[in-house]
């Protein structure tokens, strides 16, 4: 039952998406959790969060980006340039951080150097870094610009009613995810961290109807399973920058711990709030997405993020926190330092890991650190 989620989480073009493509469905990739995927869904397009897994070298990307840049946007550019995103009908780049913003320029340039690597629909979606009323007005304008571009490029209708229906469907999925997440908080855990994370990642990849339907079935299965995990294991939380790599969570669990919570760029942290289902749907989306200050891309909300992490630590009975960030990630690199200091002062053991993205990671060194961290917690 987990297989559909694992397949989605482990491949950049999952079977379920390929099948929909064969039936004429459009697929548009996006780079940041601050993009309201409901808009694409309302246009009958499959929104797919872009991922850099399956990258084995950066020979192309390194010539566009300098050496001191996070490997995540580099991996995306590498995959795009080598044609691995051939199935995309469009791509939307956001200002998640400066490295991701520059992906817009690099990909456009690579599009002229590598024929066919730039999808015909290519949109730059700006996201404010604050959530004051003027920022929300600007964000609403950005969403409306995106709607207009989608309408004219793909010749599709995007009505307010359709957006409302998409919001309802997405909210339903969020409620199911909250429920699944709550099953990890109990003493007897019924789902491994790796499987729970696979579900979260799959939620950004699979067609939403399919995801919601499968999640409901899976949730029912997990609730009724007799398999109990986490007994006598250290309960860990993983926080920090972009990670859609199941192997990292699996590696932590192979060392003898269980991951009971995350606060990562991919995952449950982006599903924390529901979108208001009444009123102007575009304004409701702008309000919900911009009110989410879980990512340090939002300036001035460190205390809120810290409280959020503290709340999760308490709720999931976490013994220790692993703070990971991709090397050269300014946002999470500095935020992890601040958060480590604050949490350690409260007696919560923390460990910071700086790593390369995805399959470029060297697991041996990370494994040693995880093992040492667990020994530290146990001593």
């Amino acid at each position, binding site marked *: 039952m987990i297989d559909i989620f694992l397949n989605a989480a482990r491949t950049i073009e999952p079977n379920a998406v390929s099948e929909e493509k064969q039936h004429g469905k459009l697929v548009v990739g996006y780079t940041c959790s601050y993009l309201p995927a409901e808009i694409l869904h309302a246009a009958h397009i499959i929104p797919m969060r872009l991922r850099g897994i399956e990258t084995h070298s950066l020979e192309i990307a390194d010539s566009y980006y300098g050496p001191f840049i996070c490997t995540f946007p580099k991996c995306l550019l590498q995959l795009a340039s080598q044609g691995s995103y051939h199935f995309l009908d469009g791509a939307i780049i956001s200002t998640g951080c400066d490295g991701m913003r520059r992906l817009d320029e690099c990909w456009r340039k690579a599009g002229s150097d590598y024929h066919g690597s730039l999808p015909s629909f290519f949109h730059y979606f700006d996201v404010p870094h604050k959530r004051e009323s003027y920022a929300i007005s600007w964000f609403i304008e950005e969403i409306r610009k995106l709607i207009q571009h989608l309408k004219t490029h793909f010749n599709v209708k995007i009505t307010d009613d359709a957006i409302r229906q998409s919001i309802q469907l997405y909210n339903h999925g969020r409620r199911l995810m909250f429920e699944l997440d709550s099953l990890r908080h109990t003493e007897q855990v019924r789902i491994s961290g790796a499987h729970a994370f696979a579900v979260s990642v799959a939620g950004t990849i699979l067609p939403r109807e399919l995801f919601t339907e499968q999640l409901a079935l899976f949730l029912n299965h997990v609730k009724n399973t007799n398999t109990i995990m986490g007994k006598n294991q250290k309960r860990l939380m993983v926080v920090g920058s972009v990670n859609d790599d199941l192997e990292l969570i699996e590696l932590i669990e192979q060392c003898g711990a269980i991951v009971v919570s995350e606060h990562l760029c991919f995952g449950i942290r982006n599903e924390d709030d529901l979108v208001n289902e009444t009123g102007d749907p575009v304004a409701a989306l702008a309000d919900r997405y911009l009110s989410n200050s879980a990512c340090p891309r939002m300036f001035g909300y460190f205390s809120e993020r810290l409280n959020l992490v503290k709340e999760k630590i308490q709720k999931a009975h976490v013994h220790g926190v692993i703070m990971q960030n991709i*090397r050269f990630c300014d946002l999470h690199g500095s935020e992890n330092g601040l958060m480590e200091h604050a949490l*350690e002062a409260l007696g919560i053991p923390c460990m910071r890991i*700086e*790593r390369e993205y995805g399959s470029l990671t*060297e697991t*041996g*060194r990370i494994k*040693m*650190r995880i*093992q*040492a961290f667990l*020994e*530290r917690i146990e*001593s």
Partner: protein
Amino acid sequence: MTIIAGCDVGSLTSKAVIMQQDKILAVEIIKSKAKPQESANLVLENALTKAGLKLPDVQFIVGTGYGRDHIPFVHKTMSEISCHARGAKWLVPSAKTIIDIGGQDCKVIKLDKTGNVSKFIANDKCASGTGRFLEVMARMMNISIQELGEVSEKSKQPIQFASMCTVWAQADVVKYLNSGFALEDIGAGINMAMANRVSMLVSAIGIETDICMTGGVSKNSGVFVSLERILGHKIKKARKLDPQLAGALGAALIANDQIKGRA
């Protein structure tokens, strides 16, 4: 007679310590082989021969080091962090901060009042600040690592290296050698560059005295003295045993705990 052992399979050297409770019976250090299991078998066999023992005589063995998961005869594996912490505490009981510089990485470990690891930090995927850095530089200068430590003691004007990157520093060494600079000044500069790199890790975690150093590089007097100067604190020398054996010693002490726990 309870015999326990610790086996530390590192990237450059493999070490073994055989103990009978708190007494060290035999130690061994060899150059690591291509396969960790080969290194582990050989180093333990040599140590056992020295002690006049055979493998079945050993009740509990703890493995550590980068090759720990491939050691065939161990009963338990522990990370290098925990083993070095334990070994260093035995060697220097007052130690609160441990600087361990091995062949391929460098770690700084802080201990709490009870001697448990309270914090650690390690360098990432970079040769600078590791034994490998010194090995490469010594090779460039056509001297041994041992000599690299000794020559710098004679230096009056250490060279300041612009980069701590192993590749760039290598190019600088060639430049200074060709320009006729004294070997001792180049050597002292290398040790200083190494100490600078390590001091960054120490500063990141915060110094708490007493400080002690373990790992093969701790035997390089040039790095040792430079580090003392940069940190502004004396570093306690491990006198009871070769500090390169701290990881294997810690592993043996943890093996002893395991036996006691069973009793």
